Structure formats: structure tokens, C-alpha cells
């Protein structure tokens, strides 16, 4: 501590150590939050259901998503990435996931929403397995904090079924 440089070095080191410690506590404070998100998806119509020239099934649908994800936000939350995936089982793969819609929620106020949308990304099966197929719509989310650990969770909604015939 006898010169300016030594004092500056000691100050900087100690300050950064405390900063890291504060970030760790902030990240830990996220685990005390027990969120209670709700989500509901209603499929309004199957707009198009066809076999593509290459033999794969493609679906276009319109759905209503209503969700309340406000409880995911804490003081340490930067943003929440949320996406809706169609999940179904085929003889070849026990789990197929197709992302239909996604959104980045930046503000807590925007986390309570009701959206009517067609699928933003194309719902194409790798094969021709979708006729009369039962599928789940799963709302996945990834919470991105300002500091520390990321969290991910989902809500699975069951009981959706595709038509037996192409249209």
C-alpha cells in the first residue's frame, strides 16, 4: 500500500471480488422465486394440411395463445424467450418437436398476453405421419437473467388431434 499503483491494484481487486459476490447473491435470489405461470392454447382452424411434393406432411394452423408469465420475472431478469412447439410421437422417433411460434418478452408488463397467430415457422413432419395424429402443444420458456444461471421450463398442453384427411 506504499504507492499509488499498489493501492489502485488492491482497490480494483477487492472491488471486483465484491462485485462478483454481489452477482452471485443476485443469481441466488432468483432461486427463491417460485413462479406460477399459466398458459392456454386453442387451435382455431387447420388452414392447410397437405402432402408436400417430397412426401412430407405440412400443416398450417391458426391458434390463440393466452399466457401469464409475469411471475417468471424477478429483479434479475433480462428477458424471457418463449416458444410454442408441437410435440408428437412417431414409429421412428419417440419425440418430435416442431417449433411453431416464438417471442422474446423484454418487459414484465408484456408477459401477460393473448395472441392470435398462424404458425410462424412451418409445421413439417419428416415423413407422412401426421394424418389423425394426436399431438401436444408445449409452451417452453428460457429465463435469461442479468447475472447468473439461466432457467428453463415448460407447460405441456395435451389433447390436440390433426384431421384424418388432407385438405
Amino acid at each position, binding site marked *: 500500500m506504499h504507492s499509488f499503483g499498489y*493501492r489502485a491494484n*488492491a482497490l480494483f481487486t*477487492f*472491488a471486483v471480488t*465484491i462485485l462478483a459476490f*454481489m452477482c452471485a447473491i*443476485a443469481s441466488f435470489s432468483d432461486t427463491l422465486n417460485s413462479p406460477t405461470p399459466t398458459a392456454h392454447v386453442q387451435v382455431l382452424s387447420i388452414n392447410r394440411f397437405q402432402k408436400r411434393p417430397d412426401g412430407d406432411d405440412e400443416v398450417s394452423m391458426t391458434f390463440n395463445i393466452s399466457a401469464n408469465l409475469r411471475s417468471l420475472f424477478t429483479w434479475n431478469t433480462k428477458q424471457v424467450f418463449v416458444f410454442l412447439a408441437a410435440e408428437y410421437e412417431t414409429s421412428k422417433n419417440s419425440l418430435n418437436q416442431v417449433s411453431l411460434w416464438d417471442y422474446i418478452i423484454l418487459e414484465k408488463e408484456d408477459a401477460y398476453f393473448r395472441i392470435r397467430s398462424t404458425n410462424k415457422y412451418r409445421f413439417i413432419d419428416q415423413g407422412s405421419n401426421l394424418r389423425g395424429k394426436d399431438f401436444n402443444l408445449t409452451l417452453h420458456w428460457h429465463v435469461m437473467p442479468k447475472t447468473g444461471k439461466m432457467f428453463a421450463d415448460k407447460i405441456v398442453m395435451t389433447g390436440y388431434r390433426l384431421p384424418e384427411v388432407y385438405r
Partner: protein
Amino acid sequence: MDWEGQKLAEQLMQTMLMAFALVAFVTGYLLGSFETVLLIYAAGLVFTSLVTLPDWPFYNRHPVKWLDPSEAEIHPKPQFDSTSAKRKASNK
């Protein structure tokens, strides 16, 4: 900066930084804003730097007392005897 001043500077640096960190974290947590934590802590860091980095006069209140020059004359430094050293070297 004398010895007491160095001790004081280090203690001041540590206590001030920890106090600012505590105030910043509690305020930010209560306001629900992580940005507030960083702002208060950065302000505290600047203030602590101003207090502890420069060699302020109050760090020099206990100057080191050197021995009187006359003391050194009473107890002179032992002289190196070059002749005896040479003799030892030749004996080997």
C-alpha cells in the same frame, strides 16, 4: 505515506467498499432494479478511489523517526579487514 497511513488507507478502502456494496445491494433489491446496484456501487468505487488512492496529508501524521546521525558515529559500522580475508583465501 507513512506506515500508519498505509494501514489506515487499506482499512478505509475495505470498509468503504463493503459498506457501499451493502447499501447498493439492499437499495437495488428493494427497488427491484439491478441497474441501481451497479450505479450506487460504481459511485462508491469512484468515491473510495478519491479517498484512498492519493497521498492525502492525513496519511502522514506518523512520520518515521530515523536514528540521529550521531548515534551512527557512536556505534560505527564494522570495517571489512581485507588483509585477513586474503590470508584465509591463501590458507585454503
